């Protein structure tokens, strides 16, 4: 059973303020119980991955971005981005 504390821990990890913890407890628990069917699978199947040869990676070239991107972002104090401090 997913607990209230667990939901709060998850919400802290992804930084979302949630008020109605109970609502999420019930909903998340229901889905997790559904996911539990996965746990019954015993498979040694190798995990699939996409491959790319080293030769085909991006060559190391400096190409400056064609416009002043900072002007399209929330900027302040000239060309800075303002952020709240982590305390």
């Amino acid at each position, binding site marked *: 059973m997913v607990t209230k504390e667990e939901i709060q*821990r998850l919400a*802290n*990890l992804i*930084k979302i303020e949630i008020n109605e913890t109970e609502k999420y407890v019930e909903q998340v628990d229901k889905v997790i119980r559904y996911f539990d069917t996965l746990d019954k699978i015993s498979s040694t199947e190798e995990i699939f*991955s*996409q*491959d*790319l*040869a*080293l*030769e085909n*990676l*991006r*060559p*190391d*070239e*400096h*190409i*400056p*971005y064609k416009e*002043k*991107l*900072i002007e399209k*972002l929330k*900027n*302040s*104090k*000239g*060309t*800075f*981005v*303002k*952020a*709240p*401090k*982590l*305390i």
Partner: protein
Amino acid sequence: MTKIGLEIHCQLTKLKSKLFCSCKADYRGFEPNINICPICVGLPGSLPLLNKKAVEKAAMIAMRLGCKVPPKIGFFRKNYFYPDLPKNFQITQYNVHGPTSIGSEGQILIEDKMIRISRIQIEEDPGRLIYEGDPSKSLTTFVDYNRSGTPLVEIVTEPDFTTPKQVRTFVNILSDLLDNLGVSDTSLEGALRVDANVSIDKGEKVEIKNIGSFRNLEKAIHFELIRQESLAERGMPIPSETRQWDEGRKITISARTKEEEQDYRYFPESDVPHVLIKDQLLEKLKENMPESIISKRERYVEKYGIPNQVAEVLSTDKFYSDLFEKAHNENNAKEIANLITTDLMGLADTKEKRDQLKLKPQHLSDLADAILNNKITRISAKTAIHEIAKTGKPLSEITSELDLGRVDDESSLLNIIDEVFAEEKQAVEDAKQNIETVNYLVGKVMKKTKGKANPSVTLEIIKKKLK
């Protein structure tokens, strides 16, 4: 037993572009947020484009540190929120589900101790935070993303060090090695950053972060060991924690005020496909790797008969060995080694001096040839190097400007020697009694010629006159 392990972050400053985009890898000297693009500020819809050279350079580091390089490497996301992290996850490598980082299980001999390298991984650097005003009063910080996405290689050692001194030796050797490989200029501010984890017998592992310079590294570890030992003596527990090095007070302080749980939720970054590194490619890379410091030193000693100590100095510093390699030939190698390690040393011992140095390899080979052909004395050569370093003028010009050409002809030397004999009557008598003291007279002649006199001709003339 004291156990110290290191996590070293090295920026690949020799690359032209960032790890996942085409912005400049060397972010230094830009106005804030100018060296950015949608990828390195994590705009919605942007996708990482892995830099081929970054993988190659990291593979070179791995090979040089004796690591295994797997045939296939993969990237993971490390998820955490931080003001300088634009995507709020870092693309890095992770070996918990099998070795997919660029290197693992390496080792390197430091003096007579083998230090094991547990893994080497490629990752991106976050942006930089700039604080203004009184930090205790202001809640805001300013972010500069110019550094965001700079290619980093993280080198993680096993806890094989037992003293702070070993750590310093290792870091010195490692930074020489990285410079020599041509992957990084470790003298740049922030190019090489070291975190240490320290534990003693009776305690948990303590991580020390934020150690600015290498000099502080030794101090920080030393402080931490004393702190832990004094806790242990008083029977107090040493909890596992992260501590920051406080540069001002020269102590480590606990970093987390609030007990915040870390759970990075690593999982594969599928926007970057697994990279296949074929054996042949790795072999080719290995062949083209710059010669190692050890191999250089041995070659200098064996091929050119350069004394071991001189060869040591020359090979460990890439700046010197590059100069040497470009300047020398079979005949003048030994002389050039001498010039670099004795006369040039004081002129190029800091980054600033190196940046301003006007001396080119051609100067060194001209100078060495002039010495070998008796056109200039060693003493004059020293004067010439100083002048070249400042002006960059060709040797011939400097020789005539400063009148450094060697005085070889007997008649002009004879005149000067006559003067010296007249001024130094007692010394002449002494020398007649005891030929060993003749060097005093030779020295006087040198002084009068400002070091230009041919010493062997001078000696011969004096000896003749004494008879």
